[in-house]
């Protein structure tokens, strides 16, 4: 019999059994909550007089629609009354149900997918859900972490279980050394470019190979974060020293004898040598250049040295039409170099790229330079209050401010523009976020997904450049 994959192991360790209707139940160790997808779930519990199954398995923080300036004002800083009601509702629900929350004024507040790992709340071998598709981020810790809808949020609140069929196993093997100026973001965009946005639907991805082993936890989180952009609900990386070293000493991590016991178990969370995967994809990291999306789907991506594609090069008529539609929306011209795209705004932030390592990479490019005259605004939004404090202590914030960039408070910000940070109609934005969908960053806005270093270089140049030449 073939060995088990990492996903098989975590699934098996959480398989509760089958319900009467034949559906599988898996046990959920941690549910992360934020203001947008939880109110209807809490309301459902209240209406049906159901308690939380396990209060201690929940952790909350507001992130999606909190403003990123004037944080000291707290709730008073939220001028949108509908958004304010939502953040207040999270406060009320957490108090009523006894859920631990890092509220808007807590220095630990931030994007849920930055906060969980930073606190050590995310641990290897866990099952994690959150009403947010980028929950896949936590898979970097060999956790099975999945985004769920609000009904599933309520279901996990009430039962600590998720009704689910097992996914298939998909190995993504990346070997070789990345060139300086190429980052985890470029790897995942290249993977999505190969697989397509539905390429991994029904699968759990496991990222492996020498390149992945050499990535920091921040890099692995960037990679796993965008698994959903390839259609996979979850992406995972096996446990190694990098994983263990990251967790040790964090506030929620076990200590003493419990740590020893946990570490021993965690180190078993790797795919067996003889494990079989249903599908696989191999990539050579050395062949990957900085990636830039040109369209309205993350799969519409090209290397920095390439040109905007001609729709006629797509054989499939449906893909061809999708490309035509995207080129029109984005107002980019087939055959022109991707570096010709002029930028109006730049966004460095999001659950994909707002950790300390991302800010260091951006600051290294920006140091001593000024934002280009044609760029109206550069937002640098740290992923959490603690990332913000660290970046300030390291002098990174000052580098951004000296260059003419805006240094903000933690939140999702312009990744999805639910708060006041947004693009104007027709504006082009170099963004370190995860989705270039139509209107994602603001009505009629145009998003180009890139790494923090490429975004920083674009802010300085006013258009896209090959950041490898700057390092």
């Amino acid at each position, binding site marked *: 019999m073939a060995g088990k994959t990492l996903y098989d192991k975590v699934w098996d360790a*959480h398989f509760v059994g089958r319900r009467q209707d034949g559906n599988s139940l898996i046990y959920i160790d941690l549910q992360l909550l934020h203001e947008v997808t939880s109110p209807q779930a809490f309301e459902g519990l209240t209406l049906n007089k*159901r308690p939380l199954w396990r209060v201690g398995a929940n952790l909350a923080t507001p992130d999606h629609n909190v403003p990123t300036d004037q944080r000291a004002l707290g709730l008073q800083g939220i001028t949108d009354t*509908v958004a304010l009601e939502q953040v207040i509702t999270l406060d009320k629900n957490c108090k009523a149900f006894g859920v631990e929350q890092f509220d808007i004024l807590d220095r630990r507040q931030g994007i849920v997918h930055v906060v969980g790992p930073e606190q050590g709340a995310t641990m290897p*071998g866990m099952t994690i859900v959150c009403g947010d598709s980028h929950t896949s981020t936590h898979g970097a810790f060999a956790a099975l972490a999945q985004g769920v809808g609000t*009904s599933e949020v309520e279901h996990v609140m009430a*039962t600590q279980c998720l009704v689910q069929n097992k996914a298939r196993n998909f190995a993504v093997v990346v070997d070789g050394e990345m060139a300086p100026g190429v980052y985890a973001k470029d790897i995942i965009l290249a993977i999505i470019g190969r697989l397509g946005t539905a390429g991994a639907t029904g699968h759990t991805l496991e990222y492996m190979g020498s390149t992945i082993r050499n990535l920091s936890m921040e890099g692995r989180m960037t990679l796993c974060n965008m698994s959903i952009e390839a259609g996979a609900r979850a992406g995972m990386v096996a446990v190694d020293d990098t994983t263990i070293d990251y967790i040790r000493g964090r506030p929620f991590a076990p200590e003493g004898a419990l740590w020893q016991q946990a570490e021993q178990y965690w180190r078993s969370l790797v795919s067996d040598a003889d494990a079989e995967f249903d599908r696989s994809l191999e990539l050579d990291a050395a062949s990957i250049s900085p990636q830039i999306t040109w369209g309205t789907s993350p799969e519409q991506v090209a290397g920095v040295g390439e040109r905007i594609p001609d729709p006629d090069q797509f054989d499939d008529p449906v893909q061809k*039409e999708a490309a035509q539609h995207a080129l029109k929306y984005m107002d980019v011209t087939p055959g022109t170099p991707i570096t010709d795209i002029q930028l109006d705004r730049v966004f460095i932030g999001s659950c994909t790229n707002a950790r300390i390592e991302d800010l260091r990479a951006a600051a290294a490019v920006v140091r001593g330079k000024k934002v280009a005259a044609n760029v109206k605004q550069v937002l640098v939004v740290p992923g959490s209050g603690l990332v913000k404090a660290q970046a300030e202590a390291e002098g990174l914030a000052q580098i951004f401010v000296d260059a003419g960039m805006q240094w903000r408070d933690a939140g999702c910000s312009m990744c999805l523009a639910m708060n006041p940070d947004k693009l104007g109609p027709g504006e082009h934005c170099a963004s370190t976020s995860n989705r270039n969908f139509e209107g994602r960053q603001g009505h009629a806005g145009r998003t180009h997904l890139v790494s923090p270093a490429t975004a920083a270089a674009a802010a300085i140049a006013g258009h896209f450049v090959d950041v490898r030449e700057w390092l």
Partner: protein
Amino acid sequence: MQAFTSHKGTVAPLDRVNVDTDQIIPKQYLKSIKRTGFGDYLFDGWRFHDEGDIGITPNERDINHNFVLNKPAYQGASVLLARDNFGCGSSREHAVWALQEFGFRAVIAPSFADIFYGNCFKNGLLPIVLKEESIEKLFAEVGAGYELSIDLAAQQVVAADGAVYSFDIDAGLKEKMLNGMDDIAMTLAEKELIDTFETSHKQAQPWLFMRDQV
């Protein structure tokens, strides 16, 4: 949850791949703490030229008459015919709520994104996967007044000319949909199973339960 047994209704075609949930219901409407009130904003960026927000009604908006759902032929449509990877992107269940409130009872596509597909079954919106060639045939045939009949028990979609399109569906999901069962109640019926698992899980990985004492 609303049960789904059978349905006959007008079909509207949405001829685009990778329709993401940001298009189905844009972010500004997610600020609502309710489960209702999203139908007016379905496909907001495509149905209207101007930017909307919660509280702004459709008759105050700049309507895009070229968008398929605004065409007279497809008024009152309750079956959406779509392309590959429908519902990709954000996990927002608001996308399903918006489609239902607008009047859709079923979506037919060659493939769906996983989270959206699951969300449909929590609400009684039936996602039907048909083969690529069947989808092509339906896109070629659909027009004003084109209707389809859907029979979930028989797992069939039937056109007016008698053409029958069979579809596969997980037996458990089908059962749940046919009866409109309360998912949480069904799981809570297995309380003993969960309790037993939890006890052994706590023994095996006690560090996962550290926050219970807080």
